[in-house]
């Protein structure tokens, strides 16, 4: 018993401090100002009604944020993954109804890594499907390769963000034992528009023999890696949305007077506010740590933990914020629902609570009892 603690301490290797990951403040300021001006309550509502926000997307593209973290030599805007994640946090904070993640760090990343040509218009991506053993890249569609570098897709893909507005639909899938990145012109596909809970496009795409370009995916660009990036993108969006939802709730409960005082003065209401504030802080921290580690290299532990934390926090925080708002929060004319409905949808994308719980459980049991504490303190680095 007495020897055990020293053994544990001996196992923790002291690493040299890694390079700090810094996000340029100008990015935060610019994105915040842009969305603050464009993503009014009315504009977000209108985007839901028509299934898109072309003007907001156009203005977003003019800043170059649409291709942030995509290398300049692949037609991107350059910048780090951490900077792209910061932009996504602000997309969530302002409920900007645009496919920023799909076009940039997901679809844009796949095209750049595989060296495939990027179309002029919007790029979206088929979300990988969680399976028993990991992730299946093409959803429920299948691919066959022609000899000339083209590929033919058949079957359907479900819940493809903004497919109806896309120029190209990109996926990564296994083909004859090789991981391939495939890009298909949307014009070759039949697209059935469907909304998610927040009225954001999550369309069904029927390929039925659509032909596109294909290239082998380099190492580290498999379906599982795309799923991790996708999960990280949702954590960033959720961090922003929870933070804004929390701020709305604090403001409203300080203005709303019942029994002769603002309802925020009642302890029962304060408890809701504190739950929401804790969750906002928790998810923001999880998002920043995961983004930092993913910028440095692989971060499967941090991303799994962050998505699980975000999913659970979303459930608690939406409950607390709606309850504190009372009936006002249930109306379409008040903006709370823009955030709560997005959170309910995003928590279901790129891995449910159960999925990421199982992933973390496997990591924890894999490192064994002696490895658990280093895993908690050092994260992915402790996986070896």
């Amino acid at each position, binding site marked *: 018993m007495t020897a055990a603690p020293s053994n544990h301490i001996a196992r923790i290797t002291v690493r040299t401090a890694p390079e700090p990951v810094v996000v340029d403040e100008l990015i935060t300021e610019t994105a915040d100002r842009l969305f603050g001006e464009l993503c009014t309550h009315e504009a977000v509502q209108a985007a839901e009604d028509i299934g898109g926000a072309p003007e907001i997307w156009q203005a977003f593209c003019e800043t170059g944020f649409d291709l942030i973290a995509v290398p300049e030599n692949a037609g991107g805007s350059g910048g780090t993954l951490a900077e792209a994640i910061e932009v996504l946090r602000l997309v969530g904070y302002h409920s900007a109804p645009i496919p920023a993640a799909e076009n940039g760090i997901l679809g844009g990343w796949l095209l750049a890594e595989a060296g495939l040509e990027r179309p002029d218009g919007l790029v979206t991506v088929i*979300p990988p*499907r*969680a399976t028993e053993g990991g992730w299946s890249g093409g959803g429920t569609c299948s691919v066959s390769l022609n000899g000339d570098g083209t590929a033919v897709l058949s079957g359907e893909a*479900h*819940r493809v963000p903004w497919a109806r507005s896309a120029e190209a639909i990109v996926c990564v899938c296994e083909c004859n034992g090789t991981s391939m990145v495939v890009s298909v012109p949307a014009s070759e596909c039949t697209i059935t528009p*469907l*909304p*998610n*809970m927040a*009225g954001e496009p*999550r369309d069904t795409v029927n390929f039925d023999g659509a032909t596109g370009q294909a290239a082998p995916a380099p190492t580290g660009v498999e379906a599982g890696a795309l799923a991790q990036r996708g999960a990280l993108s949702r954590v960033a969006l959720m961090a922003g949305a929870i933070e804004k939802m929390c701020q709305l709730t604090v403001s409203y409960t300080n203005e709303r*007077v*019942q*029994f*002769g005082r603002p*309802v925020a003065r*009642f302890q*029962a*209401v304060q408890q809701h506010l504190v739950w929401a504030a804790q969750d906002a802080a928790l998810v923001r921290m999880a998002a920043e740590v995961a983004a930092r580690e993913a910028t440095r290299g692989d971060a499967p532990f941090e991303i799994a933990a962050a998505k699980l934390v975000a999913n659970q926090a979303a*459930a608690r925080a*939406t*409950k607390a914020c*709606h*309850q504190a708002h*009372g*009936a006002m*929060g*249930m*109306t*379409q*004319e008040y903006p*709370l*629902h823009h955030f*709560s*409905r997005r959170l*309910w*949808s995003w928590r*279901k*994308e790129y891995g*449910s*609570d*159960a999925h990421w719980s199982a992933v973390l459980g496997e990591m924890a049991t894999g490192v064994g009892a002696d490895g658990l504490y280093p895993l908690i303190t050092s994260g992915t680095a402790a996986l070896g």
Partner: protein
Amino acid sequence: MSDLASKPAALTADNIRAALDGLLERRTDQTRLTSMGAGSDDLDDGRAYLAATVDGGWHVPTWPSAHGGRDASVAENQLIGSVLREYVVPDLYPFAIGLGMVGPALLAHGTAEQQSRWLRPIASGAEIWCQMFSEPEAGSDLANVALSAAQDGEVWRLGGQKTWTSRAMWSKWAICLARTDPEQPKHKGLTMFVIAMDAPGVDVRPLRQMNNDAHFSEVFVDGAVVPDAWRVGDVGEGWRVAMTILSHERAGAGSRGGGDGAKRGSRIPTWIADLAALGALDDQVRRDEAMSIYAADMASRWTTQRAADEARSGGSPGPAGSGAKLRTVSSYKRRAYLANRAAGAAGMLEDGHGYIETVTAPSMSIRGGTDEIQRNILGERVLGLPGEPRLDRDVPWRDSRKGML
């Protein structure tokens, strides 16, 4: 007497079934109905059901037989309720204010003339009611209502604004809480009236909810005229009438009609059968949650039954209604989230399993009095705990408002 012939002394499940079989369809395991009107604007199914059952007094058995009931005892009412669960009883959300709240309030506080005019059309589904209670400045703090009623000879003239008035756009009548004496403390200067929704000076503007329903409205009242004969209870007694109505609303949150059910003899509720069909109950964590909800539902049903046994026939449910509402809301929310989680990623879509319940769920712990208000009622009236300090309780309402603004 013919009265005895139409109402045998020994009412049994079998003779209730014999009467209902000619009127209603039996439930099957496939029966799926909406709950609390979420996602539906249907009035016809409920109206047809009420029209079919009113002559036998089957839906409101404890009401007088002259007014659409059958003078049933508490025990008979429970027996009828349990047999009704074997039949397709549509979601009666559009009719719920009249059946569950205004009816009992008129029986407790209304005149014979009022009962004769209004009760039977409620029981038959011919006339829909709403309750004009909440206002922009009077939600949880309901006693702060400002809509005024001023007497003018044989009539009252009403003016002000209500909000969150559910079912207003379907309603022929409203029961309306109004301030008749602003010089009295806030709970004491209130009076209850019935107002015709098609009267000049009544303007209904629906509000759209985040689940896309537009079942709630703002109601603007400008000089609407109400005869004194439509006043319910004495002048200044409005709060007492309102409390009768609200305790029925809370107790009625889980009353008969709508939702899922199982045919007679099946022990598995359809919501559990649906989860099993999705494969969701293969997962230990979800199975655990489903069984936890089921156990809580059973305990809630027996608690409600015990409270009903103890209550006088037709009496006000009192604070027990608050407990019933808390339990019903908790169950609805847990079922909604479980169903939506069980749907996996497809549950994010608007046509996904559990979608309408998920986007409706947050309202359940708000409408009809928030969970916080229900717990206050239980704390103060059941446990006898000290209440929140209320500085405005004994000052004239007019002065308490000055302080607030």
